[in-house]
């Protein structure tokens, strides 16, 4: 089962690399959108995680 999972993940990596090479070459702004959108989503998520760290163990009073 672990081997199947590993092969699946390896395939996903290969597909991602091929996608990056092809789209990065042919459509740089499309590639930028993929990378940028993921970055925007993760940065906004990081902001929320930071919020939790700032208010850890206390009721939210100052927001």
């Amino acid at each position, binding site marked *: 089962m672990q081997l199947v999972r590993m092969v699946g993940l390896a395939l996903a990596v290969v597909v991602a690399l091929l996608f990056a090479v092809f789209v990065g070459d*042919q459509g740089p702004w499309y590639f930028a959108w993929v990378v940028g*959108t993921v970055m925007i989503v993760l940065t906004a998520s990081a902001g929320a995680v930071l919020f939790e760290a700032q208010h850890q163990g206390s009721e939210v009073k*100052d927001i």
Partner: protein
Amino acid sequence: MHSINPMVVDLSRFQFALTALYHFMFVPLTLGLTFFLAAIETVYVVTGKQVYKDMAQFWGKLFGINFAIGVATGITMEFEFGTNWSMYSHFFGDMFGTPLAIEGLMAFFMESTFVGLMFFGWDRLSRQAHLAVTFLVALGSNLSALWILVANAAMNVPQGAHFDPDTMRMQSDSIVQVIFNPDAQAKFVHTSVAGYVTAAMFVMGISAFYILQGRNKEFAARSFRMAAIFGIISTVAVITLGDVLGRLDYEHQPTKIAAIEGLWENSHPPYEPWLAFAIPDDEKQKNHLEVGIPFVLSPLVTHSFDTTIIGMKELQTQAEPRITSGIQALVALHHYDQTHSATALAEFRAHEADMGFGFLAMKHAPGQDVAAITEDQMQSVVDATKPDILPNVFVTFWSFRIMVVLSLWFFLLFALGAYVSLKNRLNRNHLLLKLCLWSIPLPILATEFGWITAEAGRQPWTVFNFLPTYLSASSHGVSYMVFSLAGFALLYSIFIAAELFLMFKFARLGPEHDAHHAQSASVHVVPDDVFVTGMGD
């Protein structure tokens, strides 16, 4: 050939503009809110905190209202191409139809399928699986936009196609060139990310409303924080891609960029000012009351200090030989259509690149027949056609400026919002919170003006340099157009009213309404909560 009634063309244009602008009131929020939901759910998966699930469900419900009404307003537009723009559909259908079909079959089906899972799958899917579904909804909605913008880019910067004189239409050579059209790429990212800005302002504004009212502070503070960060990065991306689009327009659509900048004469780099204010006079071909910022225009448009930007008057002069050549192309094409002779075909091929300018000249030819133009009449037809190559400068100039000013305002507001939120000082900045609340509709306004800039700036063409707008419409009667226009205006106004009513209602009720009804959901099925609790709860 039948004579073209300009009133029908104007009404067809007005109807398309009306339906497109109505539709685009809903689209940006859908594009952005899906990815914002994905961000919230990512935090829910990572932290396991209930508040993030509540956030995803509440903002998801508002997304659902917007999605349902937005879809309804979009469907009619696809039919409009056939009903009101039959000449365009014949001429360019091969190019335009393919991306539209892919949009319907791939992106829209994907989005619609997963949207069901997203709304009703909260208690049926694992957290991770639900997150994956939300990402797929976001991807599907943005892929929908992608295919529409691929089609739009083919109209603005046609590539990957050729005109076939036997079928009298543009035929696709390379779908890869169509998809990877630089205009499609930049326009897609610009539009998609403008949707992110819209969603961020929507969430930030409603969260500010709760904080001002002292309600749902835990919920609102987190939503505000995420929206401010989501928004500030998105605004930077929107401005960056706006610059890319400006550069592309400079290369491929010089009339559009000259109209955007109100540039009647050639620019004088590096001093040439960027006009912050002016009243362009299309009739007299000059600006009134110009107020400009020196040394900005050349680097802004050309990314250099010494490149001249061609003004609109010079562009008209440059079009003169193309109009003459285009008339020759049409005469040869007509001859070829009747005789299929190699000589006529060779003559047409020699002038083919200017065919669109010949179509423009048709309007001023005797009986709208270019073959009837005598040598004596030629110069007067060319002179009459020259001003037609320009878009409406006043509209293009001002719609661009409104969009730019608004995007700078968003940058400021998101930056302040993110700073104040990170410093945990939100509830001490009531003015900022009020500004966030009042700014909710502004990104929608900015995207509408962005569309007006792009589409009004493309005029007089539906397919740039190939097919003029006045030749693209169907041959309906005026009464038919007035009737359908009134019907659309009425129907879409009802949609807008319904959207506003539902949005205001559920935003005012807030997430505590969901929590209250979730408790009673085990006893009763509450129709209002169908997006949150699922059908079977």
